[in-house]
């Protein structure tokens, strides 16, 4: 057998930029704000295939809201949205610092991604259920969940509703439509589809949302979610938050040769849309469209939120080891808070002064809440959950072997 073929070699994708080189997003195609049309919510997924390769954007460079996705929110609602994002950012900064001071073991922040969960929250109705990852706390902040309870959970103190069992930020609140976060990637994406199917089975009007990171779309559970959502036309909105990185791994490792994550939906016949994740108005408009589509019985939507993880992956991570420090500043979609602020100022509904004042007020509020939580306790100090709590709730009724173990443990 003669060797007619040259030797094969392995393709291992590489990011455009590593520490020491210059960030370059020139290959990243950004359509003009307003360029992508808003289709009817009952559109055939096949008719909008191009939307998986474009980006829905509302805010233009000058801070104006343009195109047919604009106009859904009043200035009052936009100011409230800005407040939600500022609150999430201040909350993150304080909790990050609390972790550094040893008041808790671990924290994960949203820096640069605040618009995604804060704006999406607005499109939901009471009774809908989110299956979030650890980076959607905006669903709670914007959804009116008490910040004090979030902090108590983070501090694993005596008032933590999860009794210190779970890692910080792995919140759970059925009442606020926030499914218990597990920490295992991807597992909950497919569960969101099951919840949505249950709503359909029961003749209900509720919908579900699934959330997953760019890196985690590689998990088999992502594909399981897509096939079930597609087959049963489940009333679910499946969200991919593409923040460009999965710890040290750039998004190309999960995406492979396909152009975008949204395009994954095409193989399943699911309506698939990319949206500017740093544009509060765009995220809200697309979320509203997809939620309406689900609620009207037209089936699932896959949304890729294009954003950037401006901070470290978690408090255990130092991104300067694997990406350029200048990359966040070079990110072409800007900062979600700055962009919404500019828009509000542009339309005469906000000012630098009001912004500064709002920031200060919000920070004061967060600090006051933090003091309240710390007065109860922090990890390793103050009032803690009982060791008894770790034996409780494994089963509805504690089996005899666990009762024996609890007694052996002295509780």
């Amino acid at each position: 057998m003669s060797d007619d073929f040259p030797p094969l070699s392995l393709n291992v994708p590489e990011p455009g930029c590593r520490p020491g080189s210059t960030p370059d997003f020139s290959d990243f195609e950004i359509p003009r704000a307003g360029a992508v049309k808003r289709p009817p919510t009952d559109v055939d997924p096949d008719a909008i295939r191009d939307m998986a390769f474009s980006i829905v954007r509302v805010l233009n460079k000058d801070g104006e809201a343009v195109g047919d996705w604009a106009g859904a929110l009043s200035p009052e609602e936009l100011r409230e949205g800005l407040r939600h994002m500022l609150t999430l950012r201040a909350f993150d900064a304080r909790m990050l610092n609390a972790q550094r001071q040893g008041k808790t073991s671990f924290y994960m922040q949203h820096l640069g991604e605040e618009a995604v969960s804060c704006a999406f929250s607005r499109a939901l109705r009471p009774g809908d259920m989110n299956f979030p990852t650890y980076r959607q706390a905006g669903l709670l902040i914007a959804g009116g969940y008490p910040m004090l309870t979030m902090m108590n959970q983070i501090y694993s103190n005596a008032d933590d509703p999860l009794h210190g069992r779970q890692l910080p930020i792995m919140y759970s609140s059925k009442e606020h439509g926030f499914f218990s976060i597990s920490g295992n990637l991807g597992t909950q994406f497919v569960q969101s589809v099951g919840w949505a199917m249950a709503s359909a089975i029961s003749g209900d009007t509720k919908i579900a949302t699934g959330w997953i990171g760019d890196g985690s779309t590689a998990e088999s559970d992502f594909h399981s979610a897509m096939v079930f959502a597609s087959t049963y036309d489940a009333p679910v909105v499946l969200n991919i938050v593409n923040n460009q990185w999965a710890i040290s791994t750039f998004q190309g490792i999960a995406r492979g040769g396909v152009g975008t994550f949204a395009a994954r939906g095409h193989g399943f016949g699911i309506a698939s849309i990319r949206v500017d994740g740093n544009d509060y108005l765009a995220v809200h408009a697309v979320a509203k469209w997809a939620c309406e589509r689900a609620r009207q019985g037209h089936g699932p939507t896959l949304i890729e939120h294009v954003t950037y993880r401006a901070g470290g992956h978690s408090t255990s991570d130092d991104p300067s080891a694997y990406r350029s420090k200048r990359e966040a500043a070079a990110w072409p979609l800007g900062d979600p808070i700055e962009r919404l602020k500019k828009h509000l100022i542009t339309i005469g509904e906000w000012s630098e002064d009001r912004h500064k004042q709002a920031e200060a007020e919000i920070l004061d509020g967060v600090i006051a809440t933090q003091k309240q939580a710390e007065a109860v306790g922090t990890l390793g100090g103050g009032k803690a959950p009982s060791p008894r709590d770790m034996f409780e709730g494994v089963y509805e009724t504690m089996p005899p072997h666990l009762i024996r173990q609890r007694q052996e443990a002295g509780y």
Partner: protein
Amino acid sequence: MASMTMIEAIREAHDVAMAADDRVVVFGEDVGFFGGVFRCTAGLQQKYGKSRCFDAPINESGIVGTAIGMAAYGLKPVIEIQFADYVYPAYDQIVSEAARLRHRSNADFTCPLVIRMPTGGGIFGGQTHSQSPEALFTHVSGLKVVVPSNPYDAKGLLLAAIEDPDPVIFLEPKRLYNGPFDGYHDRPVTSWKNHPKGEVPEGAEIVPLGKASITREGADVTVLAYGTMVYVAEAAAEASGIDAEVIDLRTLLPLDLETIQASVEKTGRCVIVHEATRTSGFGAELMSLVQESCFYHLEAPIIRVTGWDTPYPHAQEWEYFPGPARVGEALKKVMEG
């Protein structure tokens, strides 16, 4: 000899194996450019190139599945699962495929594969960064299971695992990565510097699979431990003043029953310690084996000290973790019994 942390020892084992054998390939989540979240593979991509050390998509089943394909081709994959807590999506590939490939194909295909993963608690990692799933692997025919407890063994055992012709589950106690840990969480952390087992030989010296090590000689009671619990057992023996013999099993499967038997026949007493949950844990297997092989030498019932049968908690970590106090109690009880 050079003084090393367990992380450095593991890195060096990779380095030695990759230098000696082109067929050794290394991959996993964040394993390539960054060198792993615990940095166990740092520098390998830069040294051996991207086709021998690379980042994998976040898909544990895919990582193990592709590694099985590579092993069947004739490569020797050494793969990392970022935390043992994340191995479950790969369980089918490990149990139904890697473990059985040799047997079902009558060695037409084999699976020389090492699956590394950080295991165990003690870092406030909560339920998704603390589990000890060793019994899920020792229960499966066709797998070998290794748990090193120090840099010396980590390097030697990893080299032995890479040489081995069958799939090896290599569980690295993450609480030991940077220093030994005796369970006294409120005392200052110690490092591997100046610890005798932090001295690691250069080159390709292996520590054979299937051989336990007696880390503390004693006459009155045998303590069977592995991983982090070796240090807890030693600390408990020290604190209680009981003349305990501590055996570091090092390999759970194949198990060095000979060493265990000789010790229990000498002491007549046995305490078994592991971090994992109790019911159907590896301690149950050890207890059965000691009972089967040493019954007539036993002077007291065997005692297990383990994690409780609950998910690994966050805030209650030190009530969950079987520390020196609980092990000390067991030592006293077994001496009275």
